[in-house]
């Protein structure tokens, strides 16, 4: 396995925004707790955000529509409280970053590069409603690539930067290529799909309903760019759905909505997919 692949997470990760602050997963994480768990935080912004006060999640057939509004305590508070807790618990922490400007992304990356215990970054360049969430709008592949380049410049090259892309089959390949060229270690293919609540408000659809969409995007990216590691995300909820992404060429999967339905999902998938602990090393002469 190449160096870049070895520093990648996987094969099962907690998707951004679906693991609480990490603490809430602990009771459901199994006998080893969060030890070695690859966890992407909810997207962290420079300043605190309280998120929306209206209904944030609506249930639909096969999934959820959400417009949570990126509630998070801001970078400073995150660095002082949530991150140290996660690191102490033994999680491999991938911090999801989101910003309104390129400068904010660069700031986030610079300050996170100095924080102890950050395994890598995930850059949210495919949120379902960027305008509504007050995020830098990624309409063209070069927008995504410039954000990745800004982050990569500030973050040590020996730690991964993941570009999280929208599962839009007409654009995902260009986006993946541009992000790869801009220095992304891997791409996460799949995010909540732009959708609407029943009252018309903008949101993002997630869960089993989006799985086939994400799967198609993963297959296209892997086929065209076999050297770029792809992490599949969308509707993974059991071994079969995880396997379909791995069979399509993904090096790993992220689990989001399924955790909201059954908080033990990641623990079970890890038990099924992680290779058993290696035998004790032979005595070296």
């Amino acid at each position: 396995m190449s160096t870049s692949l070895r520093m990648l997470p996987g094969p099962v990760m907690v998707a951004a925004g679906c693991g609480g602050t990490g603490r809430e997963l602990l009771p459901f994480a199994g006998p080893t707790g969060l030890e070695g768990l690859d966890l992407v935080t909810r997207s962290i912004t420079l300043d605190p955000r309280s998120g929306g006060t209206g209904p944030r999640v609506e249930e639909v057939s096969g999934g959820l529509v959400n417009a949570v509004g990126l509630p998070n305590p801001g970078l400073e508070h995150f660095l002082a409280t949530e991150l140290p807790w996660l690191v102490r618990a033994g999680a491999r922490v991938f911090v999801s970053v989101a910003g309104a400007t390129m400068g904010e992304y660069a700031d986030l990356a610079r300050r996170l590069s100095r924080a102890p215990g950050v395994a890598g970054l995930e850059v949210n360049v495919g949120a379902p409603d960027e305008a509504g969430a007050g995020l830098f709008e990624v309409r063209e592949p070069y927008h995504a690539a410039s954000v990745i380049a800004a982050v990569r410049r500030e973050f040590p090259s020996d730690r991964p930067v993941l570009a999280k892309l929208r599962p839009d089959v007409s654009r995902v390949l260009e986006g993946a290529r541009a992000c790869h060229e801009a220095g992304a270690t891997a791409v996460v293919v799949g995010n909540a799909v732009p959708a609407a609540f029943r009252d018309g408000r903008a949101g993002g659809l997630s869960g089993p309903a989006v799985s086939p969409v994400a799967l198609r995007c993963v297959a296209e990216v892997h086929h065209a760019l076999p050297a770029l590691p792809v992490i599949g995300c969308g509707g993974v909820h059991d071994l079969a759905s995880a396997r379909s992404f791995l069979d399509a060429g993904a090096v790993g999967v992220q689990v989001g909505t399924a955790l909201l339905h059954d908080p033990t999902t990641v623990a079970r998938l890890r038990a099924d997919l992680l290779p058993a602990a290696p035998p004790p090393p032979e005595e070296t002469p």
Partner: protein
Amino acid sequence: MAEERTPHGPVHVEGEVVATKRVGAYRHLTLTAPGVPERFRAGSFVALSVAGHVARRALWVHRVRASSAFGPTLDVVLEVRGSGTAWLAAQPVGAKVAITGPLGRPFALPKDAVSCLLVGEAYAAAPLFPLAERLRERGCAVSLVVSAPDEHHLLSALEARRSARSVTVLTADGSVGQRGGVPDHVDDLVRRSDADVVYAAGPVEVLRSAAAAAERAGAWSQVAVEVPTPCGTGLCHGCALPVVGEDGVDRVVRACTEGPVVRGDRVRWDTL
């Protein structure tokens, strides 16, 4: 071990329906849920899975039994409102249901033997019954008020007469007990019970009026708030509850982790 790290934390288990009974407008289910009854504290809730649905359904726990022919059990009270509660209410004895719990912050109990007024509307009065028992064990004088739109939606307070010094029944249509709702009577009830703490569970108008009456009387209040909880476990941040923090700063917290029970004077009712 995870158990050692979180001794009181929730568990996610397969439960089984061991009894189902229609009482008035409600369906009472008795369930096994290994580990949940043992950890339950009044005011915490359980999240149940519904076949074919992604979001969980939150339910108050009405009572727990430490032992029965089926081992420890818990009771929930269902009001059928939509597809999820309809599915749950239709589950026969022997049906398996995924249950997570106990979840959320329970009612805070006073250190001293003080006077407590417990006010609950419709099915949401459910968690006040185990609360009344805990309070009585601590020597508190408990006054219980159960209210409902009509007799059909009234939780039976018969059993609570053991733990409560007084029981008051209110119905909006006057079919049993006094006529009217909690907002009409709550100031009077707080005064008559000489309450040091008011506990309330029910729709927003009930909670808000109970919290306001407590404040007017110089009493503390603890309110059990229901906002939609997509996961119930704190993972999704979907259950926004606007509060004023201890430091006086406005915040939005997760109802399922920082609540569902919060101090009544901390809720920003106008934004809820």
